[in-house]
């Protein structure tokens, strides 16, 4: 319990750091972006938009620390200001529409990729110099070297445009109403398949190599020799002795990679016009919708922190050495 609390404490500090970073970025950037933006907008900007801008940045004449406290108070009550491009929609509401899709697509792809890569990595190391170990690492290292979004473009070109197997854009067909029906669910899966596949292809190699190397390390230790000498079945040695230990370092990097993969899947969303946070983020960047952009950054960061916390809990559960008790 103490370990859980100490991890929770760390993530609270990290969340506070992210909040502060989010507060400081627009204020510390060279040439005061609010003024620049107001200048850019002046021709077309309605007074409401300027007001939204000021509200979003909490830009008042108050001293910095007062602005900071205001900002923290607003964020904690869920108030992220108003979007400029979709004025007067609230930033929180805009993000909420995208977050579901990102968590669905990115989360499922990430977990699948980790599960597939880790399992294959364990098997590749177990059957050293088998075909799995000869073929998979180089092939996947090559496929992992392509940018995510480029793989997405290629996939869209081949399976979408040329072969016509996959839908071209969006998360579901526009003529369907989002309801809890089987038809709609199938449509969503159909739309998500190709984006998810490109994310998996781009990331599975990393998990495979990491697990394979960790496995080779564990397989060389005396605990495996002892397990073999005891005459245990290969299955028990592979999973309960080797993989069970080798997965621990991989799990730690899983936490670290959540942010990286999520960032990469943002780019995939853009290629597929998938209505998630990545698509929103790039719309915000292109329309210079700074409040929305900052809100998205904060939301994505907090989602990654939450995922990392879950991974830490899993590590605590799987590794008795991290549990402080006698």
């Amino acid at each position, binding site marked *: 319990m103490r370990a859980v609390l100490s991890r929770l404490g760390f993530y609270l500090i990290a969340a506070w750091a*992210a909040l502060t970073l989010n507060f400081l*970025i627009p204020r510390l950037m060279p040439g005061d972006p609010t003024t620049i933006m107001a200048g850019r907008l002046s021709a077309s900007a309605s007074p409401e938009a300027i007001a939204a801008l000021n509200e979003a940045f909490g830009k008042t004449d108050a001293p910095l620390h007062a602005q900071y406290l205001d900002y923290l108070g607003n964020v904690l009550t869920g108030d992220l200001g108003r979007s400029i491009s979709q004025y007067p929609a609230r930033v929180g509401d805009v993000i909420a529409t995208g977050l579901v899709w990102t968590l669905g697509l990115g989360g499922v792809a990430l977990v699948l990729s980790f599960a597939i890569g880790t399992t294959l990595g364990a098997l590749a190391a177990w059957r050293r*110099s088998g075909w799995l170990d000869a073929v998979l690492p180089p092939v996947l290292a090559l496929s992992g070297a*392509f940018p995510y979004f*480029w793989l997405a*473009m290629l996939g869209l070109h081949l399976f979408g445009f040329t072969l016509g197997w996959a839908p071209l854009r969006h998360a579901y067909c526009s003529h369907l109403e989002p309801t809890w029906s089987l038809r709609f669910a199938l449509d969503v899966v159909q739309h998500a398949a190709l984006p998810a596949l490109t994310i998996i292809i781009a990331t599975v190699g990393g998990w495979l190599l990491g697990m394979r190397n960790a496995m080779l390390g564990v397989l060389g230790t005396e605990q495996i*020799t002892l397990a073999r000498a005891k005459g*245990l079945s290969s299955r028990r040695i592979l999973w309960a002795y080797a993989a069970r230990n080798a997965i621990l370092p991989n799990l730690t990097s899983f936490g670290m990679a959540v*942010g990286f993969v999520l960032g990469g899947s943002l780019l995939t969303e853009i290629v597929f016009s998938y209505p998630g946070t990545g698509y929103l983020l790039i719309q915000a960047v292109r329309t210079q919708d700074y409040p929305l952009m900052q809100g998205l950054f904060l939301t*994505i960061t907090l989602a990654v922190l939450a995922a990392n916390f879950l991974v830490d809990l899993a590590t605590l559960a799987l590794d008795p050495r991290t549990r402080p008790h006698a």
Partner: protein
Amino acid sequence: MREHDRSFWRSLGGDAKARVGIGVLVAFAVIAVIGPLVFADAAAPVGRPLQGPSWDHWLGTTGQGQDVLALTLAGARGTLLVAFAVGAVVTALGAVVGVTAGYFGGRVDRALSLGSNVFLVIPGLPLAIVLAAYLRPGPASLIAVLALSGWAWHARVFRAQALTLRRRDYVAAAQVTGERHARVIVAEVLPNMTSLMAAAFIGATVYALGAMVGLEFLGLGDLGAVTWGTNLYWAANDAALLTGSWWVFVPTGVCIALVGFALTLVNVALDEVTNPRLRKRARGQAGTETETETESESESESEPVLDVRDLRVQYGATRAVDGVSFALREGEILGLAGESGSGKSTIGYALLRLLDESACTVTGAIVCGGKDVLAMDARALRAHRWAEVAMVFQAALDALNPVLTAGDQLTDVLRARGGLDRAAAEARALELLRHVGLEPQHLRAYPHQLSGGMRQRVVIAIALALQPRVLILDEPTTALDVIVQREILTHVARLRRELGLTILFISHDLPLLLALSDRVGVMRHGKLLELGATAHLRAHAEHPYTRQLLAAFPSLAPPARSPLEPAAARPTLLEVRGLSKRYVGGSRFARRAPPALPALCDASFDLREGEVVALVGASGSGKSTLARLLTRIERPDHGTIRISGDDALAASPRAHHRRVQMVFQDPFASLNPARRVRHHLARPLILHGHVPAHALDDRVGALLSAVGLEPAAELARRFPHELSGGQRQRVALARALAADPRLLIADEPTSMLDASLRADLMALLRRLARERGLGVLLITHDLPSAAAIADRVLVLRAGRVVEEGPAASVLTAPAHAYTRALLAAASHEAL
């Protein structure tokens, strides 16, 4: 972790992956240099938009009518420059933060680690997108943004490495030499991180390449520039996909992937060079020697339980085991002695067929119960293992699975092999634990919650699970404290009597084997030189090597020699009064450690000039703490240290280290593998002797000669790994003498050396004390070696001095019970 610099780069150059990777990178470097020169106007329209590949435009044209080939080749420079620049900045930033945190530890570490861990969990790409959106697009802002979002991971890696290196003895040795921290980091720590830096640089460059292309694809780069990322941005913007113009984006993506893949190849090759386990197979060591007669035991009183005939194990060209034959008789203890690399452990593994058979060839026969183990199929082998022959491995911590409880590791073999159900297996496991002297609650304990001795007992319990006929014990107590060692051995002797076990006991400790075994075999270079009944071997060893080994172990009686002449006339050199030290806390995960036992408690003693004082105690008794306090690597909580009457704790560190020097336990750890012998000796000469540069070589040579290393000039140019263990320890001694100290602290200086070299080094220490009037504090757990050279002996237990007196009287008439226990453990009597 890499130890040797040049061999490392050489093996990297010899690796096919590395060669392919480096070749691709060089090709792209050439393109990056000449591409923009040849295609100066790559961005200018030259034809009709979105035309497929043709003779005029090999890779077709873009939506704006630009030539795709020209854009791709011209884009290499801008892309690679930013990627490699980010790689360099991130590596430097990570190294500075990580090494600072790891080296200094404590509060500095906590603050820096917290900072980098926070940065690590904040997703990099979204942060980079937000930052880039505010900055004016261009290469400089890309580098800044990507470096800021990517440094944290590498700081973490560097910190971990610095934490391990910080604990290396050569870092402590440099501190004791009197070096400043900055110089220790630059001259001792960083040279051992070159491979890590290379890996960090490559990893960061791969990350930067991907992230940069991503940012530019989003339109956050300089859209007027020609780079791979902007090429892809325009491809998406000009509806290349909608029109099916695959040639616009495919070439750029392939180039990015080729560079990324080449970098990954180099990184994998680097990994394999630095981590030998990842390579296809490990090579066994042990050399070959001229043929020697193996004494075969012809008289067999009873049917052997296990009969080994002409066993040979060959790894490539080296013979780890070379024609060994012996028979194990029912109920006996057969000792197998030999120094490391003699092949004795390989025999133990061969008896269970645990050797990696794809890496070595095993010939001969191992007959057990009428069947040849080497000829068994997988099924028969599984039945043979553990039921007929079981084994206790050397390092219990490595042999136990850290994520399973002791009970799990006992019951799994009972259930899988003994055919018991869960309840029966648990009951039997409890019985086994009781058998080896453990409590029922230890069934639920994880290995890290048990002490070293308890873990070894668990391993023994596991070995006994299926009631094997033969038990192989492979150095079962080497990693343990002498007192615990004795408890375990007494237990083994009892188990053998109670269970009628037949035991093959493998150890480098010949006196131990002589005390414990019925018969003893001596191995060297893969051959069994001699095998005979213990009493016979002790009195009439035939092989010269056996006689040499027997002679190398000093007896416990102090040799007759002149005492330190007018003892009272010699001035007191070291005066320690009431010295105490208590450690608090520990690492974040080490809360199971009991709350701060004092490591040293109220220690007081004197040491005179020219006197050798032995400080004896089991591990954990506070010996090493005392050494760290005397060398001022740490400060005491209470007490005073006076040297020639001056307060040593008030002196400047450098003045203190001029008078007090130290020789560390492990000469393989206390010399920096990345620096030559000359470096190790020259630094203290410069710091303390102010020797000018032109005289350095002469002084280094003189020092090497003084410790018996010739030819001095040639040895000074060598790296530590080019020296033998004995030579290394002499270099370490020469380094300590370079400052011309008054007091020399020697921490187990011979424990890592082969028995035959110990006596020489001890004699050298004693001679130096006599000739130079040097005070020597010899720290050891080994009473016999203390007896060999010490004038006086101090016995330390749990941080307290429990006995003090002249060597002869402490050894022959110990007053304290603990001293008697130590003596008994060292003599192996009554096992």
